[in-house]
């Protein structure tokens, strides 16, 4: 008998076998703070003793390394695969280690190739959580998460803007078609008041509202400095979200 094909998909399950929970941070709308929230969530979970990985899956526009102040001047070490370097206690992987700060313009099938390659060669080891920063839209990276990860608990980031609400509703509709509602969580980011529209939306769609992260006008000043990030107001709010996630 004869077979032929792409070997990378066959090994992804092995790479994720010792990862207990996968939390893709998603929002179909851009500019809602996914990357900052992903990074702070990973740091906050790690700060509570969890073993955490963070994967920047915004392939053509990676920026999580900017938040964490990761050193792109050397490639991650190799040990029967690529070993994600530790940043503030978090195993951090990004295509930026290889593309640097150069543009990385890719067509859809090329993005899919990057995702498959990274998932096939990254050695995460034992993790309690793998947090994934995803790009806006419902495109290749998001679909790859839904297709290649055997299990995941999406954390959807929203703001009360009518544009974000319209966009996030579409994403939640898609997610509820493929994941059980109790595994889908919604967080309100950049909250400025006591509005309950996001919590109401979560209730309406039978997904879980995990809380609010207040708008922090000083957060940009501490980007790139993990210790300073951990002293920010946003980190304090995200820590509450992390605590709730740990208890579930």
């Amino acid at each position: 008998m004869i077979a032929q094909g792409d070997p990378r998909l066959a090994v992804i399950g092995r790479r994720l076998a010792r990862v207990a929970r996968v939390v893709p941070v998603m929002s179909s709308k851009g500019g809602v703070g996914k990357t900052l929230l992903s990074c702070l969530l990973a740091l906050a979970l790690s700060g509570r003793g969890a073993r955490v990985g963070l994967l920047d899956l915004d392939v053509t526009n990676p920026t999580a390394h900017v938040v964490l102040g990761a050193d792109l001047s050397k490639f991650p070490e190799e040990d029967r695969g690529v070993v994600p370097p530790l940043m503030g206690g978090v195993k951090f992987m990004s295509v930026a280690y290889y593309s640097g700060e150069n543009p990385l313009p890719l067509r859809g099938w090329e993005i899919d190739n990057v995702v498959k390659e990274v998932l096939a060669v990254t050695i995460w080891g034992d993790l309690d959580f793998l947090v994934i920063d995803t790009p806006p839209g419902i495109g290749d990276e998001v679909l790859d998460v839904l297709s290649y990860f055997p299990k995941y608990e999406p954390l959807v980031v929203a703001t009360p803007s009518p544009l974000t609400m319209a966009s996030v509703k579409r994403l939640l509709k898609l997610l509820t078609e493929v994941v059980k509602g109790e595994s889908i969580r919604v967080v309100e980011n950049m909250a400025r008041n006591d509005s309950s529209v996001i919590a109401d939306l979560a209730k309406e769609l039978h997904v879980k509202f995990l809380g609010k992260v207040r708008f922090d006008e000083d957060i940009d000043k501490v980007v790139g400095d993990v210790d300073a990030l951990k002293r920010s107001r946003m980190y304090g709010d995200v820590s509450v979200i992390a605590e709730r996630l740990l208890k579930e």
Partner: protein
Amino acid sequence: MVHEWALAEAIADYVFKVAPNAKRVRVVVRLGELQAADEEVLKFALEEIMKSEGVECDVALKREDCVLKCRKCGHEWLLKEVGLEEEVREAIHFVPEVVHSYLKCPKCGSRDFEVIKGRGVWVEEVSWE
């Protein structure tokens, strides 16, 4: 051990998936010039992994030249016509698509080009009885 081991594991897992009960297999792997996987290391790793699972494995590796084609002007060129620094080669070795971060079409300067041949690792044939 370099990351070729991870690629060999992927090939091995693919073989175990398509031929779960085979005790003797022949595997033909196509290696794209762009990824530039080390043939010796990959072959050694694959044979070791298969042996540890009790499978006799005959491995054949076929190197494929990398051909690029511009989506803007249609120009086609070979990777070997372009000089790349060692560090860039290494970055591309890990994630071949980052070639778009370092190369442009030699004719029109666009980064919107396609790798039409010779990208990475592909199992061309697994045969067993």
